[in-house]
C-alpha cells in the first residue's frame, strides 16, 4: 500500500542544529533533500550550510575502532552500555571528542605496544617451527660433516624438479673454494631436497653470491645458532619457544584486563561516533540564515506526528516543522514508500531489482504477489516437485539467515510452492505420471475437461491465453487509473481503445471460428472500428501498431502451457527411461537424475517466465517506473532490520 508522503521543512536556531539532526537520525523517518537546489541565485538571506569539520570525528572513529579491534571480545553488558550510551548522547561534539581522546590516550600506546610485541612473538614462533622442521630433517647428515675450525656451514633447500642445480653448484664450488668444501644432500620430503655445505670461511662471499645467483632458498639460521651442534640448536629452540608462549600468555592476560575495564565504553563510543559521523556527513544538504538552519525532507504522513512530537519534546517551540504544499506534478519527485504486508515484501524486492515505481503510480507488487505464485504453480503443477521446492527453500532460508536477498527469493519460492502442489492435484502429477502409474492420484475433470497436461494441450493453451487476456486487461485498466491520476486524457483514450479493440478482435475470431453467435462477430467489427480512432487519438498513428504488440503480449502467455508441458514431458521421459532397465537400482538412478535436472529447470524456468510475464507483458501496460525508493536518514544497521 502506497504511503502518502509529506514534504517538510524543519526550522530552528543554529545552536540546536546538531541536536536536531541527532533527533531526526534516531527517529529515522525523514529522507533528507539537498536544499541547495532550491536556493535561488543571488539569495542573500538563505545560503548553503557550511560543512562541519567532520574530519576530527572520522579520525577519532578510526583510532577508537582500531583499539576496539585489538582487544579480545568479551560479552556485551547491555545495562552498562545503555548507561554509557545515555551519558555520551548528552555530550556535545567537543566534549564527546575530548572523552574519546582521553580513552585513546589511555589505551592507544599500550594496546599498540602489546599488539606489536604479540605479533613479533608469533612471527618468532613461526620461524622456530620452521628451523626445527629443517634441522630435524638434516640432523642425520650431521655425522657425515667434518668438524673443522674456520669453516662455515650453510643449508640450502631445492625443489626436486631442479635437482640438476645441485650438480652445477657443486662444480662451481670446486672452483670458488679451490676444493675446500664438503656438500651432502638428502630428501627432506616429497618435493624438497636439503643440502648442507661446509666451506672455508675465506670464500664466504663467493659461496653466498653463488647461492643467491642460483635463486636457491638458503636457510639462514639466527646468529646464536651458528656453529652449534644440531642437538643443541633443537634444545635452544625448545627453550625459546616455551619462553615466547609464556610471554604471549602474559600479553593476552594484559589485553583481557584492559578489555574488562574498557570494552563496554569502547563499544558504545564507537557506535556514538559512527552516528555522529553520519550526522555530520549530511550537513552540506542544509540551508542557513544568519541565526537559523533549514532542513528539507520527505516524511511518510503516518510518521509525521511522531517525528513532530520527538522534536517538540526535545526542543519545545524552538524548532518548527513546516509542511510544504506540493503540486501534483511535483509529487513525482517524492520518494516511493510502500508499506506492504510481509507476504508482499519479497515481491516488492523482486520488482525493485528491475525498476522502482514512481510515487504517483499504482504499486504492482501486490498484484505480482498474487499472480506470480499462480503462474509459477500452473507451470510447475506437480505435487512432488512442489514439496521438494518448499523443503529446499525452507532449508536455504534457515541456513543463510544473514543474506537478505536470498531470504526474499526463498520466501517467493515458499509462497509459490503452495500453488504448485495445488495444481499438482488438479493435473494429477506426482513426479510426472509416476503418481498416476502407481494409482495414487488422477487428473481432475473440471468443466468437462480432464486436466492431464499431456493430453489436454488445447484446453491448456486456451486457458493460458484466457489468463493472458485477463491479465493484460487488468494491466490496461491500471494504466487508465494511472493516466486519470496524472490527468492524461490521451493515455486514458489509448488504453480504453486498446481494451475495446482486443475485445472486438476476440469476438471477431470467436465468430469466424463459429464459437460465438454471428451477431457477436458483427459487434466485434463495430468495436474495432470504434476503438481504432481512440487509439490514434491517444497514441498517434503508430499507436495502431501497439495493437499487434498487445496481441503478441497476450499470445506470449502461451508459455504458461508450453513450459508446463515441456516439464511434464521431461518427467515422463525420466519415468519411462527409469522403467526400461531391468536393474531396479539403475532405473531408479536414471529416473532420479533426470528428475533432479527437471526440478532445477522447474525452479528456474517458471520463476523467470512468471516474472517476465509481469515485467514485459503486464507492467508495460501501466507501469512507468524510474522512481526513487524512500531511504530515511538513519543508521544502516537499522535499515537492514527494518527491511
Amino acid at each position, binding site marked *: 500500500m502506497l504511503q502518502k508522503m509529506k514534504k517538510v521543512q524543519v526550522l530552528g536556531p543554529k545552536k540546536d542544529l546538531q541536536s536536531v539532526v541527532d533527533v531526526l537520525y534516531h527517529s529515522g523517518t525523514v529522507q533528507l533533500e539537498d536544499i541547495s537546489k532550491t536556493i535561488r541565485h543571488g539569495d542573500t538571506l538563505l545560503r548553503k550550510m557550511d560543512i562541519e569539520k567532520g574530519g576530527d570525528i572520522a579520525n577519532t572513529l578510526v583510532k577508537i575502532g582500531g583499539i576496539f579491534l585489538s582487544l579480545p571480545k568479551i560479552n556485551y553488558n547491555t545495562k552498562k552500555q545503555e548507561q554509557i550510551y545515555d551519558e555520551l548522547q548528552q555530550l556535545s561534539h567537543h566534549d564527546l571528542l575530548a572523552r574519546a581522546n582521553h580513552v585513546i590516550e589511555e589505551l592507544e600506546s599500550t594496546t599498540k605496544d602489546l599488539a606489536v610485541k604479540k605479533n613479533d612473538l608469533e612471527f618468532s614462533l613461526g620461524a622456530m617451527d620452521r628451523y626445527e622442521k629443517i634441522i630435524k630433517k638434516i640432523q642425520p647428515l650431521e655425522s657425515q660433516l667434518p668438524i673443522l675450525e674456520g669453516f662455515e656451514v650453510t643449508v640450502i633447500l631445492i625443489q626436486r624438479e631442479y635437482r640438476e642445480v645441485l650438480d652445477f653448484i657443486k662444480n662451481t664450488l670446486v672452483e670458488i673454494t679451490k676444493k675446500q668444501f664438503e656438500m651432502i644432500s638428502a630428501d627432506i620430503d616429497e618435493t624438497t631436497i636439503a643440502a648442507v655445505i661446509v666451506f672455508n670461511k675465506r670464500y664466504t662471499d663467493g659461496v653466498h653470491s653463488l647461492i643467491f645467483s642460483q635463486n636457491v632458498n638458503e636457510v639462514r639460521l639466527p646468529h646464536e645458532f651458528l656453529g652449534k651442534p644440531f642437538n643443541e640448536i633443537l634444545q635452544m629452540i625448545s627453550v625459546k619457544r616455551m619462553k615466547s608462549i609464556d610471554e604471549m600468555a602474559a600479553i593476552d592476560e594484559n589485553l583481557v584486563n584492559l578489555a574488562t575495564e574498557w570494552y563496554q565504553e569502547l563499544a558504545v563510543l564507537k557506535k556514538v561516533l559512527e552516528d555522529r559521523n553520519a550526522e555530520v556527513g549530511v550537513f552540506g544538504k542544509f540551508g542557513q540564515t544568519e541565526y537559523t538552519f533549514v532542513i528539507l525532507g520527505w516524511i511518510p504522513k503516518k510518521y509525521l506526528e511522531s517525528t513532530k512530537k520527538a522534536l517538540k519534546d526535545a526542543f519545545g517551540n524552538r524548532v518548527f516543522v513546516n509542511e510544504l504544499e506540493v503540486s501534483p506534478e511535483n509529487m513525482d519527485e517524492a520518494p516511493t514508500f510502500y508499506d506492504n504486508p510481509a507476504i508482499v515484501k519479497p515481491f516488492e524486492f523482486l520488482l525493485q*531489482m*528491475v525498476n522502482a515505481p514512481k510515487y504517483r503510480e499504482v504499486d504492482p507488487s501486490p498484484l505480482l504477489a498474487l499472480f506470480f505464485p499462480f503462474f509459477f504453480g500452473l507451470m510447475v503443477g506437480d505435487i512432488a516437485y512442489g514439496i521438494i521446492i518448499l523443503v529446499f527453500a525452507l532449508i536455504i532460508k534457515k541456513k543463510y539467515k544473514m543474506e537478505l536477498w536470498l531470504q526474499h527469493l526463498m520466501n517467493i519460492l515458499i509462497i509459490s510452492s503452495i500453488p504448485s502442489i495445488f495444481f499438482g492435484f488438479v493435473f494429477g502429477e506426482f513426479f510426472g505420471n509416476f503418481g498416476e502409474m502407481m494409482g495414487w492420484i488422477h487428473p481432475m475433470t473440471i468443466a468437462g475437461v480432464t486436466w492431464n497436461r499431456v493430453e489436454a494441450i488445447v484446453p491448456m*493453451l486456451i486457458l493460458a491465453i484466457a489468463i493472458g487476456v485477463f491479465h493484460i486487461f487488468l494491466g490496461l485498466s491500471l494504466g487508465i487509473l494511472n493516466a486519470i491520476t496524472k490527468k492524461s486524457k490521451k493515455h486514458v483514450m489509448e488504453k480504453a481503445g486498446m481494451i475495446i479493440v482486443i475485445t472486438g478482435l476476440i469476438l471477431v475470431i470467436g465468430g469466424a471460428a463459429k464459437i460465438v453467435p454471428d451477431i457477436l462477430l458483427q459487434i466485434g467489427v463495430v468495436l474495432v472500428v470504434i476503438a481504432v480512432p481512440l487509439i490514434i487519438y491517444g497514441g498517434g498513428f503508430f499507436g495502431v501498431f501497439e495493437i499487434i504488440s498487445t496481441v503478441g503480449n497476450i499470445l506470449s502467455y502461451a*508459455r504458461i502451457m508450453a513450459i508446463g508441458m515441456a516439464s511434464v514431458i521431461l518427467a515422463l521421459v525420466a519415468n519411462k527411461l527409469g522403467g526400461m532397465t531391468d536393474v531396479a537400482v539403475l532405473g531408479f538412478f536414471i529416473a532420479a537424475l533426470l528428475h533432479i535436472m527437471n526440478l532445477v529447470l522447474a525452479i528456474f524456468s517458471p520463476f523467470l*517466465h512468471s516474472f517476465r510475464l509481469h515485467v514485459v507483458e503486464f507492467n508495460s501496460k501501466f507501469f512507468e517506473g524510474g522512481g526513487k525508493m524512500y531511504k530515511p536518514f538513519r543508521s544502516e544497521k537499522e535499515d537492514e532490520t527494518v527491511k
Partner: protein
Amino acid sequence: MVDWGIPIGAGIAFGLGALGTGIAQSKIGSAGAGTIAERPETFGLMVILVAIPETLVILGFVVAAMIMIMLV
C-alpha cells in the same frame, strides 16, 4: 505408411524457433554480461532481457505441438 511430413513440419517449427532464440540470446547475453560487469545493479533487467526472445521458441513449441496433435 508413416506420414513423415507432419513430424518434419513440427520439427521445423520448433527448430527454427529455437535457432532464432539462440541467435538472439547469444547477442543479448554477451552484451548483458558486459553491462553487468560495468553496472552490477542492472542484473535483474538483464535477466529479463535475455528471457525476452524465448517467446520465439515457446511459440514454436506450441505450433509444433498443435501440428502433432491436430494433424495426426
